């Protein structure tokens, strides 16, 4: 009973927290709400007219939505980079940042689910996928595995921070015996969400561009570069705008993780390029299309040739401790690395899988305005969710939000 009371009070208090803030905060939230509304309007057009309002066709049947989904799974998985050392290795440096990381994971997962739903032809019959009521084709379909791991990871990333914050809210310490096992599971789980998402593509013999044993490991490497890079950027913003203390050491360690992951990612990229271009076979055509264009069709060239130099530049800069420890350079590197991997793991990965088609037909894909609108709306939704989560968490962690504190004042 008491818990319910505390929970109610927490809800009311956090509602209070998220509706009050500086002018900048209100502008930010207003902006996000506006983008979300535009996204919802675009989605209503899509619901009304069907997916024909997107750039997708029978030839390229997955596009911007699934690209963003794939990338964001990686961002979500990256929370583990903070969870592991903090809870398991008892590294105190990350303790402050870990709640932020998990909040980021929650926001990314919500975006993932939103992108999948946006991509569905029949969102009104999605209940067909619910085990027990519908038919859940487990274990045959990798998509069902993905549903399980994504929702499981979402649950873990909500429950662990919730428990900790709930305790702190009451002015009590969180009991490690309760949250450490959960944290341990989420470490394995994070690897699995990205690996399973990679298997979604990797398991298709119809698409040689994806049917490649390196796809899964490369997903992991790029995720563990892009995810912590985003966390660094977010921490930098939080450090600037709130009273939340993030030590330099924490960011330094995260930068180390980003660097190693980016290096491994680059090695794998070289390995992939070697395989595709040293002895090109019929199966290398998608890679040719992506990097050089095929038969005059070259829509992806500007994207991939933005991504690769940014990726290399960021990795090289980060490799040198002198640059990495300079926070201005670090933030710049993190930003360009994030963009590079978004392109590479987004439509640099999904679209070429369909081009050329099963019989060599080359039909290009360009997202439409409606599609871009929905995509931006979902990103705004993610940012919105994260802002709310982070603001509440920070208030609790800095001791400003406490149960019954208001009554005593």
């Amino acid at each position, binding site marked *: 009973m008491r818990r319910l009371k505390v929970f109610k009070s927490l809800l009311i208090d956090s509602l209070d927290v998220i509706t009050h803030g500086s002018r900048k905060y209100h502008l930010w939230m207003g902006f996000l709400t506006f983008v979300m509304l535009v996204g919802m309007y675009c989605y209503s057009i899509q619901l009304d007219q069907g997916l024909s309002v997107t750039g997708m066709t*029978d030839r390229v049947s997955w596009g911007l939505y699934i690209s963003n989904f794939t990338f964001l799974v990686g961002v979500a998985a990256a929370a583990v980079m903070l969870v592991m050392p903090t809870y398991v290795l008892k590294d105190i440096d990350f303790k402050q940042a870990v709640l932020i990381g998990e909040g980021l994971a929650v926001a990314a997962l919500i975006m993932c689910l939103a992108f999948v739903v946006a991509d569905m*032809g029949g969102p009104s019959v999605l209940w067909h996928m619910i085990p027990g*009521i519908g038919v859940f*084709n487990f274990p045959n379909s990798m998509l069902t595995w993905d549903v399980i791991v994504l929702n499981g990871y979402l649950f873990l990333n909500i429950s662990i921070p919730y428990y900790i914050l709930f305790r702190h809210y009451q002015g009590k310490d969180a009991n490690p015996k309760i949250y450490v096992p959960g944290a341990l599971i989420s470490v394995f789980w994070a690897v699995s969400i990205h690996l399973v998402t990679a298997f979604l593509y990797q398991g298709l013999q119809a698409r040689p561009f994806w049917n490649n044993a390196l796809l899964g490991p490369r997903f992991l490497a790029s995720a563990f570069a892009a995810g912590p890079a985003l966390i660094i950027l977010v921490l930098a913003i939080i450090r600037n705008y709130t009273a939340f203390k993030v030590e330099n050491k924490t960011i330094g360690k995260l930068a180390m993780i980003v660097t190693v992951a980016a290096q491994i990612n680059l090695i794998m990229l070289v390995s992939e390029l070697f395989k595709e271009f040293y002895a090109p076979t019929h199966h290398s055509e998608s890679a040719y299309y992506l990097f050089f264009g095929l038969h005059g069709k070259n829509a992806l060239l500007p994207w991939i040739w933005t991504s690769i130099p940014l990726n290399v530049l960021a990795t090289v800069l980060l490799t040198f401790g002198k640059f990495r420890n300079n926070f201005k350079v670090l933030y710049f590197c993190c930003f360009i690395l994030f963009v590079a991997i978004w392109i590479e793991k987004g439509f640099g990965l999904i679209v070429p899988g369909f081009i050329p088609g099963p019989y060599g037909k080359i039909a290009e894909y360009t997202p439409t305005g409606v599609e871009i609108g929905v995509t931006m709306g979902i990103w705004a939704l993610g940012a919105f969710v994260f802002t709310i989560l982070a603001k509440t968490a920070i208030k609790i962690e800095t001791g400003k939000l406490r149960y019954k504190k208001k009554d005593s004042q």
Partner: protein
Amino acid sequence: MSENNTKWFSLNLSNSKPKQQASTCGCGNTSGGCGGHQNEIRSSAIGDERHKDGFEQVFDVQMDRRTAFKKLTASLLIGAGAVTTSCSVVADEKSKEKAQIDWEEQFKGNYKLMSDEEKKATVDRLVRSYELRTNKTISMTSENAQENVLFGYAFNISKCQGYMDCVSACVEENNQDRNSEMQYIRIHEMKDGQGLKFDEADDNYYHEVPAEGHFYLGTQCFHCDNPPCVDVCPVQATWREEDGLVVIDYDWCVGCRYCMAACPYDGRRFNWSKPEVPEDEVNKNQHYLGNRMRKKGVMEKCTFCVQRSRKGQNPACVDACPTGARIFGNLLDPNSTIRWVLENKKVFRLKEDLGTEPKFWYFMD
């Protein structure tokens, strides 16, 4: 009237409940043939409506709603979207029967797992629904696969001249969307002397055929014995039937298009918008798994014309081919033409290295 309804079977007529309260279902889930008593329902229903001069029908409880409400209870917990769809239908103050059919259709199960009675019930509902909407009667069956039948197909590359009569016949037979010009069959025009170079072939030609120095090869769904598309479907909305046909339950498909990505043969098509067929061109001889009208946002594909093949006929493409390049039959019948072709010709299949075991062979004279 109900253009914004997401279902294809938007009903334009308002009808009162059917008179047959003794029957087990709103559309007549009786064991008798539906054709006869449906006419009766329609005429009386329309009469009723006019008599009442409005939509004040009584929401009569019929037996089959048990299933519907069982599912409703479950779905209320999860399917906000689904509930909204159904609710909006009710809110439209359309006839109760229409609402009930839509409701039951929204929450029915997967066709693959239905008993024969349930299959018949849904077919009857769909027929009734079409009747309410257009005032026209269609015939739809839910025939199951016959024993000792395994369908196979052979394509004679020497004979095909690229006339594309098969494509037109297929579109007409299978009620494909006319706006997007969806076609299950693709005819690839290839250059003589270069072998099967699909990447240099043209599958979208507009000129007189046969073009000098070219030969033609058709592809469609190969109805693989080991179909990659079936494994990947998260809801088992597509499966391989006992007679080898790979089919889709259009009402169970959630539209994720994973099967499309998994198909190595470009055999699947998606309804990007609401499919439309002019009323007078609709083929009214339908099968639940075959050429019945689809809705927006679901997959579809060649079914070897299940509505014909299970009645012992050839698929429309086979009958339409003017050169006799297409051969269809029962692989388990030792006297069938397809067996003769397989035993006497040098046959091959496409992308055999993928292990999909297509039941579609190519050969040359």
